[in-house]
């Protein structure tokens, strides 16, 4: 199998699976228990927490809350912050290409809790202009939520500039969905008030995640209970998952620039191949994440191509599940100004650190052959 859907999830590394198992076996006690085994588990948890903060260089400025996923982290950041601080103002700014766990959380605040939302539109290169953020800021803006790397096309938002604007011209906090960025691209994490980590996007384990939050920020917890994780996320924490998460981030971060260089060349190989084809439009901007490449098919159905590739053992992704009765449209690609038809027929190829030129080559060959063969 050639797996090129790493933006959806990656294969967990053998090493981390072993670590997970080892910790579950040896340090299975509840980290909140008042006995030796519990305190031992707590030590591992502390180790994991400081390792995570350390590798992201926010050990002095932030806290890490272990939780289950980036979706949960985004929900806690957005709803937890907005509900806690709604007396300061009820205005939130987001972009029009956020991940559903971001915009659905914001829409829930709008529809059920009376918040006002400004939705900024990405430009044709796929990113939010900092001046648009500045213009949208109001006195009652309490939160700006903009993703770092778009999960569909890999476009990058100017987070550094946006952070400066938000912090200079308002009292709002900046939340950044960094799911596709952690361990993959450089970001000024100290400048971001709330951001998230997902283990399974960087060859870690599904179910491992964290929200990183500036130390003085208070949130309303979404899960009440035993007050674990600073009272912000009750439920018995999985020490083993937390530990693998820290290791996964550490490993990805240490290889960040080597991987980026190598994958950038794979990406430009893909780009130069597809830019010659008339029936294909490239949606990913030139200066984007080296991990994500997105195209639109002019006269073929993306779902059919994805199915054909899958039948040949090559896994890539399309917006619509194959042959679903109702075909979805990629909102991100639509936001680039593409037609509805083109936004429906998108294919995303996404790498992980192990993707090779042979994988990409096999994909290209199979793709070209399929597109030639299948009917429009």
């Amino acid at each position, binding site marked *: 199998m050639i797996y090129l859907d790493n933006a959806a999830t990656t294969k967990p590394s053998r090493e981390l699976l072993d670590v997970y198992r080892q910790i579950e076996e040896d340090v299975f006690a509840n980290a909140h228990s008042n006995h030796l085994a519990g305190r031992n588990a707590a030590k591992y948890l502390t180790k994991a927490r400081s390792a995570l903060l350390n590798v992201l260089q926010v050990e002095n400025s932030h806290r890490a809350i272990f939780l289950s996923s980036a979706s949960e982290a985004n929900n806690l950041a957005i709803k937890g912050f907005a509900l806690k601080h709604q007396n300061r103002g009820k205005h939130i700014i987001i972009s029009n290409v956020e991940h559903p766990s971001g915009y659905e959380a914001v829409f829930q605040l709008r529809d059920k809790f009376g918040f006002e939302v400004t939705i900024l539109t990405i430009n044709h290169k796929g990113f939010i202009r900092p001046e648009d953020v500045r213009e949208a800021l109001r006195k009652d803006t309490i939160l700006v939520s903009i993703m770092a790397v778009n999960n569909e096309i890999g476009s990058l938002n100017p987070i550094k500039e946006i952070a400066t604007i938000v912090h200079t011209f308002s009292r709002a906090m900046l939340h950044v969905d960094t799911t596709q960025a952690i361990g993959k691209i450089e970001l000024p994490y100290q400048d971001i008030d709330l951001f998230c980590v997902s283990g399974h996007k960087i060859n870690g384990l599904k179910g491992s995640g964290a929200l990183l939050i500036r130390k003085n920020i208070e949130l309303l917890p979404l899960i009440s209970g035993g007050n674990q994780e600073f009272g912000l996320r009750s439920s018995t924490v999985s020490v083993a998952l937390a530990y693998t998460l820290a290791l996964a981030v550490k490993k990805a971060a240490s290889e960040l620039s080597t991987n980026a260089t190598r994958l950038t060349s794979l990406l430009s190989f893909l780009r130069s191949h597809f830019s010659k084809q008339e029936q294909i439009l490239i949606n990913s901007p030139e200066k984007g994440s080296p991990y994500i490449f997105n195209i639109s098919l002019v006269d073929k159905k993306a779902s059919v191509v994805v*199915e054909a590739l899958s039948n040949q053992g090559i896994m890539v992704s399309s917006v619509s*599940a*194959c042959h679903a009765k109702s075909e979805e449209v990629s909102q991100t690609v639509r936001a680039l100004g593409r037609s509805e038809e083109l936004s429906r027929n998108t294919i995303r190829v996404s790498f992980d650190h192990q993707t090779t030129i042979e994988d990409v080559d096999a994909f290209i060959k199979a793709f070209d052959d*399929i597109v030639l063969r299948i*009917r429009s």
Partner: protein
Amino acid sequence: MIYDRIMVRFGELSTKGRNKMAFIKLLATNISKKLSEDFSDFKIETRYDHIYVVVNNNDPHAMIEALQEVSGINSLTLVVKVAKDIETIKATALEMIKSQEAVTFKVRAKRSDKNFPIISDEINRQVAKEILINSNLKVDVKNPDLTVGIEVRDEGCYLFLETFKGAGGYPLGIAGKVLMMISGGIDSPVAAYLLMKRGVLIECVHFASPPYTSSAVVDKVVDLLKTLAHYQTNIRLHIVPFTKIQEAIHDSIDESYAITVMRRMMYRLSEKLANINKCLAIANGESIGQVASQTLRSIRVINEVTNLTVLRPLVTYDKNDIIKIAKQIKTYDISIRPFEDCCTIFHPQNPRTKPNFKSTIWLEEKLPFEEMIAEAIDNTKSVLIKAESDN
């Protein structure tokens, strides 16, 4: 539990004259096959008008549940067989009603062994008297909570309380085998079920067009047949590679005739497979007028390619009635999974509802369809599908 047997009463089978013994034998075989899936150590006794399943150490209620999926059974009764002796009969009847929550009862005895010295009416009285003396139950002959059934036969006396409904119909296999065209939609599994209930064994054919259709559609068909296999232990599924034919139709047939020609190809392939696999007819889930290819005019033009009988159990059914049965036989939730068996690429905007012969044949002449059909048959894959246990 004092019951030791399940009495199996035949459905419409009772009306069949000369071949009755063959029918009973087939039903006994089907019962044995069905029960062998989950039980061992049971015995089947066939009589001229009943079959008895000797329960031994099995759970009789679980057995009855399994037998309710066997076609050709009208009703199922838990019975206990005792010696033909009035004292034993009285004692057993008393034992039977002991654990029952009821206020009223009646006794209904039947004496087919005329050598038994006590007539039915007298058996009724004696047993009723015994129950009246030894319990708080009262007699109600019109609308009793409990009916104590007693049948005195040559080989012994049977007592029973409860009767359960069977699936009805004929024993599976009595009517031979047909090739069922199955798509993954709601209709064809229901059609298959109705045929099985009528004693018809089925094999299935599915036309797959990868990559235009997802492999998830084949998974869906397999899951449907696993559900249907509760009624027929094993179902053979033939998966015909249909992509090349679909593409050829798409490339050279006028769009408005694409569906007509596609269905004709499916019928041709089904006929070939039916003959190879000794199926006596083709069957499908067509219902008059439901879609363009199912108008009478369309069906006439499509059906013209085969001499084999085409059975359409749902021909007059409304969609709502079909859905009702689909829910009852638990295929509905599988059928509505969001995977289509035909890609929208091959869905014409305006298919003909009144295709004519001449145009169809003229259009088909452009296709080397004999070769394409032979190739598809050569590459057809067959799998045997067994019921999946619920637990």
